[in-house]
């Protein structure tokens, strides 16, 4: 199908973007990499009056490592994250997750900020942000604020972002030498939307895991930090008990192919594999 008519304007700077948002109000939508938005427009699931193209704003690009943190600009593409030596060294979970995002041609265009602001519950980056306790940086004309990833995602395609705000980047804690991570997901075909997946992170000292964090995608309306399963892991319970505890954490919805019970089962299988990968 073809997109409905809309106007298009390119923001040169962040201030430019705020001005355009102010001027066009609720009828405006921000265009970053467009890999979700243009598909939605072509399917006529969205019909904005105007697209504000922020994709060329230089201050929203790039990866910077400083002071124990890794800041990734919102417009950094999935492919740039996948190829970055800084990411592989300091936030390896993101390097592990990136190859699972759609296909190479989409990873070359889609952006970190676009994926997070879209808030698809089966997307990879939101779950990684929650697992790593990342902080989202959100700006308006008046200034900027920071929101923890676990407080940002409110529902299916729903976030804490207001219509006059722009997500400018994400701060990830740089990994310590004793941290380990794993990313696993199940799909019908490589690159399809995940049926269910897990982003896992922990501290490993002399073979023992502590501070295990498990965040799931495709297991509810938002990425879910599995607090019951994490408590079981922290108490040193065997992997089977950690997986069993997931029943209290996850709320998977059935889709055309997979029932909720099957998704919960698959999440448990992935949990066992993730814990084994962290301990390996």
């Amino acid at each position: 199908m073809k997109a409905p008519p809309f106007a298009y304007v390119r923001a040169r700077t962040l201030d430019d973007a705020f001005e355009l948002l102010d001027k066009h109000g609720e009828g405006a939508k921000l265009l970053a990499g467009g890999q979700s938005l243009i598909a939605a427009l072509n399917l006529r699931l969205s019909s904005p009056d105007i697209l504000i193209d922020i994709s060329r704003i230089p201050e929203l690009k790039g990866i910077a490592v400083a002071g124990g943190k890794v800041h990734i600009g919102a417009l950094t593409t999935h492919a740039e994250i996948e190829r970055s030596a800084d990411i592989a060294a300091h936030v390896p979970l993101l390097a592990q997750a990136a190859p699972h995002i759609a296909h190479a041609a989409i990873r070359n265009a889609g952006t970190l900020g676009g994926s997070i602001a879209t808030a698809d519950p089966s997307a990879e980056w939101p779950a990684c942000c929650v697992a790593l306790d990342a902080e989202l940086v959100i700006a308006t004309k008046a200034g900027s604020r920071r929101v923890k990833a676990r407080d940002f995602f409110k529902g299916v395609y729903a976030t804490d972002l207001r219509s006059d705000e722009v997500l400018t980047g994400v701060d990830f804690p740089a990994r310590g030498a004793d941290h380990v991570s794993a990313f696993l997901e199940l799909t019908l075909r490589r690159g399809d939307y995940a049926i269910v997946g897990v982003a896992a992170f922990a501290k490993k000292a002399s073979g023992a895991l502590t501070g295990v964090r498990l965040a799931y995608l495709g297991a509810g309306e938002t990425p879910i930090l599995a607090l019951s399963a994490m408590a079981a892991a922290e108490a040193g319970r065997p992997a089977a008990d950690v997986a069993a505890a997931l029943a209290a954490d996850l709320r998977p919805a059935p889709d055309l192919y997979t029932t909720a019970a099957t998704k919960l089962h698959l999440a448990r299988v992935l949990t066992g594999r993730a814990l084994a990968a962290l301990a390996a």
Partner: protein
Amino acid sequence: MDPTVETTMTVNGSAVTRRIPARQHLIDFLREDLGLTGSHTGCEHGVCGACTIRVDGRIVRGCLMLAVQADGRRVDTIEGLSDSGELAELQRAFHRRNALQCGFCTPGMLIAAQDLVLHQPGATREQIREHLSGNYCRCTGYQSIVDAIEDVLAARRK
């Protein structure tokens, strides 16, 4: 009236300037305004890969990019990449291995395959399949396409 935007891009080495409706995606522009019908309009929501082209040297979905977003960019289509000879080896291998029947997916398949030749020349059969998972073929069953690409990668390694 559709809002239009004056846009200049380089298509297969030549500069093109047009007023383009904001809502028109790049593949429709290439096909309908420039007559470059080698890039195919398939699903129009980023799933099938028939519209795979190169923008600034990297493969993208042409249906998920507005033509106005290509302003100032370098766009390469199957026509340009065929004429330059860049795809000749892959094209020969596809022919030899019978890696196409109806041909609808072939331009996208070739451009996606060339991305592998350029950036992941050591790819295994499994990695070739992973890389092509976003390009649908409804005729061949993929086996012969993977064979053709494997041939080219192997010949390059010699």
